[in-house]
């Protein structure tokens, strides 16, 4: 295997204007990337340029601007297709984010495919967004929700999963990377195992897409969702990938303009993919910004990004491990750059406030994953999540910040 080119972190930090901004009078140390990533200048410029030069509604007007807007929007779809290695652009549906993508599948696919007693398999690692839509569907359809257990190190218990699969399993909905623990799940294996029972598989890629190469055809998943704002793009835009034959068979999710072929008061026929699932004027500027973010990611390269983040994760794991009273949750062998921890004698919210005073941004709380917190017996943790632009110096700042937390608490 060729070694990935090293990332020039100092140079790429200059692409992110916000990283030069002081916070609380200190240089910003942004370690909350699993919540949202910062945006490079090229994304900001693409959004501005779209509104300045091309703004119009899409798929409607015959005028110049409408054509340009449509072209920009569809070009972004094409970029996502390549980014995920989907076979066809019509397999990419623009949505508000991963949450909406999951709701779309649960409602549209689930309502037609699921009957009483059918089983939905989730994992104990899931974010609330990959739990609640399935509970709503379960209650509506009389289905059964089952949960794949997680081992003490944060990995999924695949033996238990194998035993849970069966003829009643209709869908397996599982995260690619755990937002709370950083575990990278063996989705390829999970999908293979589901296949032998004919179950569909949805992969929640919200935490994965910015950190590792996703190939939906190699994975052979039925659905894959991601959020634009977690891959250096704007908020309010994301994508659902679905296999064409699955999407073709599904009823529309929402009704409205653009998703129809013809409408009369008696009868409406629906538009083809992907428009069938894109009712109303979409977030055109968001799609354009997401397209620019993907160009940026591809230009830097996911492999060097992954290598840098992995090195930083190892450094952070070791450095944080030396802070007295600090306990790390999630020690999976295959792990993304997320370090979730508790500091003995100090509640995470107090840790977060004291770090914030030093310009260090981390997430504290249950990370919208209460079941996984409960599994590990903690109401909350502090989470540092790293991105391509983070440095060892920032990890050192976090460690110094935590030592200061201990001082404030006289520990």
């Amino acid at each position, binding site marked *: 295997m060729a070694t990935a080119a090293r990332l020039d972190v100092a140079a790429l930090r200059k692409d992110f204007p916000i990283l030069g901004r002081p916070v609380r009078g200190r240089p910003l140390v942004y370690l909350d990337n699993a919540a949202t990533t910062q945006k490079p200048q090229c994304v900001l410029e693409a959004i501005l340029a779209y509104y300045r030069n091309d703004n119009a509604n899409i798929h409607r007007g015959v005028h110049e601007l409408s054509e340009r807007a449509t072209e920009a929007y569809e070009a972004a779809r094409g970029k996502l297709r390549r980014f995920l290695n989907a076979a066809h652009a019509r397999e990419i549906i623009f949505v508000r984010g991963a949450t909406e993508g999951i709701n779309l599948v649960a409602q549209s696919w689930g309502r037609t495919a699921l009957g009483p007693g059918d089983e939905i398999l989730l994992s104990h690692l899931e974010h609330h967004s990959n739990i609640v839509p399935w509970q709503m569907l379960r209650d509506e359809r009389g289905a059964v929700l089952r949960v794949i257990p997680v081992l003490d190190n944060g990995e999924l218990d695949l033996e238990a999963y194998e035993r849970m699969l069966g003829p009643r399993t209709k869908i397996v909905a599982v995260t690619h990377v755990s937002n709370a623990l950083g575990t990278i799940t063996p989705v390829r294996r999970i999908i293979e195992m589901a296949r032998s029972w004919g179950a569909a598989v949805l992969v929640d890629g919200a935490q994965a897409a910015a950190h590792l190469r996703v190939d939906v055809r190699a994975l052979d998943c039925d659905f894959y969702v991601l959020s634009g704002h977690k891959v250096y793009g704007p908020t309010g835009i994301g994508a659902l990938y679905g296999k064409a034959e699955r999407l073709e068979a599904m009823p529309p999710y929402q009704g409205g303009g653009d998703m129809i072929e013809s409408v009369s008061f008696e009868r409406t026929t629906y538009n083809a993919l992907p428009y069938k699932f894109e009712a109303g004027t979409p977030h055109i500027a968001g799609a354009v910004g997401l397209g620019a973010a993907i160009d940026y990611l591809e230009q830097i390269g996911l492999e060097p990004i992954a290598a840098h983040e992995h090195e930083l994760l190892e450094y952070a794991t070791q450095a944080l491990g030396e802070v007295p009273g600090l306990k790390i949750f999630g020690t999976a062998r295959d792990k993304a750059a997320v370090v979730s921890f508790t500091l003995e*004698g*100090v*509640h*995470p*919210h*107090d840790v977060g*406030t*004291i770090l914030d*005073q030093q310009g260090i941004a981390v997430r*504290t*709380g*249950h990370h919208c994953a*209460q079941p996984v*917190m409960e599994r590990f017996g903690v*109401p*909350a943790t502090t989470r540092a999540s790293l991105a391509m632009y983070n440095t060892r110096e920032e990890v050192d700042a976090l460690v110094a910040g935590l030592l200061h937390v201990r001082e*404030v*608490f*006289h520990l």
Partner: protein
Amino acid sequence: MINELYQEIILDHSKRPRNFGRLEDANRQARGYNPLCGDRCTLFLKESNGRIDEIRFEGSGCAISTSSASLMTEALKGKTVAEAEQLLKRFLDLVTKDQPLTEDLGKLTVFAGVREFPARVKCATLAWHTLRAALRDRGEVVSTE
């Protein structure tokens, strides 16, 4: 600024909360919950003839919410319900208003520093919102949201 928030008395009460635990013969009780951070507070009151004879709390939370609950129980023991209502209003003013009256708030004035940390106001007020529910004898869980 951080030391104005985490004053000695707050650290002391968060590490060794007073009046902590269940009160078996309570005749008023309420539960509070902050869904954003998961902090919980259950308050037990024994009230007779309009006076709070005994008050205890249980729960889990950060230093601000735990110390606030602890100092609140200290301040309320022996007070009348009307005095408790008055203190509740003054405390909420203390942590949210720019120029609150601080006289007669005693130890509770240490929470004035919370004003500078808008994200933490809910931590400081959780126990007090729970108190309001207990005084008005509403059985449901009160939420900070």
